[in-house]
């Protein structure tokens, strides 16, 4: 069964003084997410990621189109009992303690009374906040609130999780913790749909990604496929700061960093480049094919002209 099935979901706002100028926040979107996968929804700020999540959560209503989550309609309370949602830059009732907030949400999600306190402590420990359950949320830092946001999303053991920019506000250690947690959730058989514009996170975590820009879906693909292709170029790194003159004739793109030089040359020029290094008595450190990156795919979808120019030999 599909975890998420988006069928032409579209959102247009009427803006301007008279409210007659249509602004397309999301153009008709068709997208499927399989059960058990981590799906990255990529795009720059203002691309339509949050609008899509708000539509799926029933916070805004579509101009046209529909979607099904776990095979159920968007307004079905049974479906909502099986999903968890972390909004972007979450804010909670700051007069509550972390435990009170989680127990309140657990009650609304239908968690049995005797289990609420245990669940609250369990998820707080899971997100790395084991000793702050009794602290009022107004005393929490941005990163701690983000962790509480994740805790409330996973509190009721949902099958499907929606995270809007889950790494936002986290330090590098916090980001690693969230990545680990998302992998653990996948391991537990849960589906994770998350929006981000941090590409290394998406590349490290996602099974599949979609790229959205200006409210329009630009592409969908499996990360393994998108990053496996070789671009017909090799990367050569050697020690020293000298660039042999022969490299100019090979059309190499060279950069000196500290005591090493990194050069990108086409595969056909690989042997000539290695000969030039030998002749100059320079020590080779590495030689590896240049693989496609998610970043290259992302750029190619957002700025097709620029990407084509970069790939051109």
């Amino acid at each position: 069964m599909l975890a998420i099935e988006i069928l032409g979901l579209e959102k247009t706002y009427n803006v301007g003084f008279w409210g007659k100028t249509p602004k397309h926040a999301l153009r008709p979107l068709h997208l499927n997410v399989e059960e058990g996968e981590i799906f990255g929804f990529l795009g720059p700020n203002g691309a339509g990621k949050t609008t899509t999540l708000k539509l799926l959560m029933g916070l805004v209503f579509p101009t046209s189109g529909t979607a099904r989550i776990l095979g159920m309609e968007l307004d079905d309370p049974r479906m909502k009992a099986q999903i968890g949602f972390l909004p972007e830059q979450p804010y909670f009732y700051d007069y509550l303690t972390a435990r009170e907030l989680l127990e309140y949400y657990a009650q609304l999600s239908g968690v049995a009374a005797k289990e609420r306190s245990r669940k609250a402590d369990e998820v707080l420990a899971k997100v790395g906040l084991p000793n702050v359950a009794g602290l009022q949320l107004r005393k929490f830092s941005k990163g701690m609130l983000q962790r509480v946001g994740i805790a409330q999303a996973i509190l009721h053991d949902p099958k499907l999780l929606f995270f809007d920019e889950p790494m936002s506000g986290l330090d590098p250690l916090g980001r690693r913790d969230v990545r680990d947690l998302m992998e653990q959730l996948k391991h537990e058989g849960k589906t994770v749909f998350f929006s981000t514009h941090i590409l290394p996170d998406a590349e490290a975590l996602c099974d599949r990604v979609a790229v959205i820009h200006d409210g329009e879906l630009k592409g969908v693909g499996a990360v393994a496929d998108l990053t496996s292709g070789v671009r017909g170029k090799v990367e050569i790194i050697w020690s020293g700061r000298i660039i042999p003159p022969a490299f100019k004739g090979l059309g190499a793109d060279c950069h000196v960093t500290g005591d090493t030089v990194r050069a990108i040359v086409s595969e056909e020029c690989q042997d000539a480049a290695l000969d030039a290094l030998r002749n100059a008595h320079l020590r080779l450190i590495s030689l590896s094919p240049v693989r496609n990156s998610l970043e290259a795919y992302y750029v190619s979808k957002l700025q097709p002209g620029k990407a084509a120019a970069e790939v051109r030999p």
Partner: protein
Amino acid sequence: MKAAPMSRVFPIALNTFREAVRDRVLYNLVAFAVLMSGAAILVGQISVGIEKLVVINLGLTAVSLFGVVISIFIGIGLVSKEIDKRTLYTLLSRPVRRWEFVVGKFLGLVGTLVLNTFFMAIGVFGALLYVAHHFAKPDAWVLVALYFIILQFVIVTGLALLFSSFSSPLMSAVFAFSLFIVGAFAEDLRGFARMTKGITRWIATGAAYLVPNFSALNVITPVAHGQPVSGQLILYNTAYALIYATMTICGAVLIFERRNLK
């Protein structure tokens, strides 16, 4: 998992109550206690024979005004604050229907106001005891006046919630407070409507019956004079307040059900 709606409405109401208490809304009771103590001492010194009248009038009017101000200023933020701070996002992504949220918020604020009125009533009776040294049987009608004041709060909270479901907090406060003032003269408006003719009569009558009739809910003066309140009026006012508040909540729900939470 199929839980009854009240299993979600009640926690939302309880959380609204908890928010009001922790945001120190009940601190108004301190101001009220100071006012009542000062008034009781002052009245005891300057008025002869009408101490009870003055204390009941002043006390109940203060209870009404304090409560109305709280119901308007918290009521207008019940929904808009949750949207602005985005606390609503994590709530509505759970199996909570929008009407359950609105009704829960309404009940939470009404519960806060009832508790607030209870403490203020203790203050009124304390002042009454101070000036009269004992309670008389007609003083029991003060309880009915307090009950009617609570019914006023129920209507005002419903109105504040209704206005806040489609307008800014400032405009909601202006609308709700204006209606409270106009509603205090509802009987006069109805009298005026009866004096007009033709289409004007239709419009004036419609408008007079549309505004909440707070004058019928105000029995402070007769109660201060020790006059009883009829059982029929108690029944009528109870039904009127509940129907009026239900209509405002239904209006708020209808609007909120269609609202995009941008």
